[in-house]
Structures are given as structure tokens and as C-alpha cells.
């Protein structure tokens, strides 16, 4: 009896995964390497509100073309 699961699996970065969901709704999106955008080097929250998480993990950015949004950054809590 054979296992139906493949012997190998391909890990996909979270920004690449989210990039695919943006492409599915018809957007021209391209996933970038981690730490390639200036927005990743600054703080991710304004600190005007007290509940903002103190520890987050950066998963990189996605560049969008033909929209008013310049870049999308993926963040994980903790």
C-alpha cells in the first residue's frame, strides 16, 4: 500500500502565498525578498494606540502595479 502524500514538499513563503491570493482577484502583484523594501526597516505601527503588538515577524513585501497601494507587507504576531 502506498502513501498518497508526496515524499517532498515545497515550502512557500507567506508573502508568496498572499501574492497568489492577490493574483487570483486580478491584481498585478509580485512578491519581493525579505528586507528589500524601506517600509520593512521602519516601525510597523504608529504607536498612537496602546494595544499594538510589541513583537512581530516580518514575512516580506509584495509590490502592486496599477493601484493606489504601493506595497503590501506581511506580518506575523509574535
Amino acid at each position, binding site marked *: 500500500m502506498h502513501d498518497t502524500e508526496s515524499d517532498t514538499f515545497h515550502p512557500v513563503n*507567506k508573502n508568496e502565498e498572499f501574492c497568489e491570493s492577490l493574483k487570483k482577484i486580478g491584481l498585478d502583484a509580485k512578491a519581493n525578498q525579505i528586507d528589500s523594501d524601506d*517600509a520593512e526597516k521602519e516601525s*510597523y505601527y504608529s504607536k*498612537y494606540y496602546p494595544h499594538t503588538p510589541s513583537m512581530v515577524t516580518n514575512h516580506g513585501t509584495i509590490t502592486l502595479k496599477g493601484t*493606489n497601494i*504601493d*506595497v*503590501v507587507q506581511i506580518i506575523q*504576531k*509574535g
Partner: protein
Amino acid sequence: MTQDLNPVSWGAQDRYQAHFIVKILVGCDSEDYLARPTLQTKGHFASKKVTGVQWVGGELADALNKDDALSTMITKLPYEDAQIFVEPTKGGVRIFGRWKDSHDFAMTKELFAVYDRIALAIKNMSCPPPIKS
């Protein structure tokens, strides 16, 4: 074997956020770009629906309150998606929603249309279109 009564929570959680960043030339960390919606709702739990939106914050919130088309678009969103935050940071003005787990972490056409319209308001505020004579 005894159980730890005060377990320490650590490590990354299965909670994600996508920040939609609008890069403007100057003053992107200004308080003027702060905006949050106060939602008027009806129903409870799964049937909770958004019936109205009132933006609270800086100058941007005033501009968003004048946009009736945006309010209509937000009332068509699920309650969870209608909770939108706009925060100014040094890297740009960030538009984002609530934390989502990896299973729900995706974008819909309707939600993106709302984010894009907010981004347009941010760009118009930072660089107003020329007045036609």
C-alpha cells in the same frame, strides 16, 4: 508529574496581517493620516451586519466621512473585514485589518476595492489634484 500553572507563551503565533502601504513624499507619519471606523451594526454573532460607518481620527477621517460610495462599499463587507485601521508610520501610511489565522488569510475583491479607495483619499490629501478652471 506536575503541570506548570503559569505557562509562558512565546514564539510566533498563527496570526497574520497584511499592511497595505501608501508611500507619500512628506509627512506620512503625521497624525492627520490616522483613521478608524466606528461601525453601526445590526444583529449578533454570525448574522452581525454593518449598517453604517463613521470615521474617527485626523484630517483623513474627515475626507473619508465625505465619501458616500466608500461607506456603501464598507456596508457590503463582512463585519470582520469592515474593521479597518489606517495608521501613519515613517515608512508610509498603512491600511490594515484585524489579525487572521493562516486558514482565513486571503484577500477578496470587495475588500481590496475598499483599501484602494482609502489609498486614493490618502494620495489626494498628500498631493491634491489641480483645480480645474
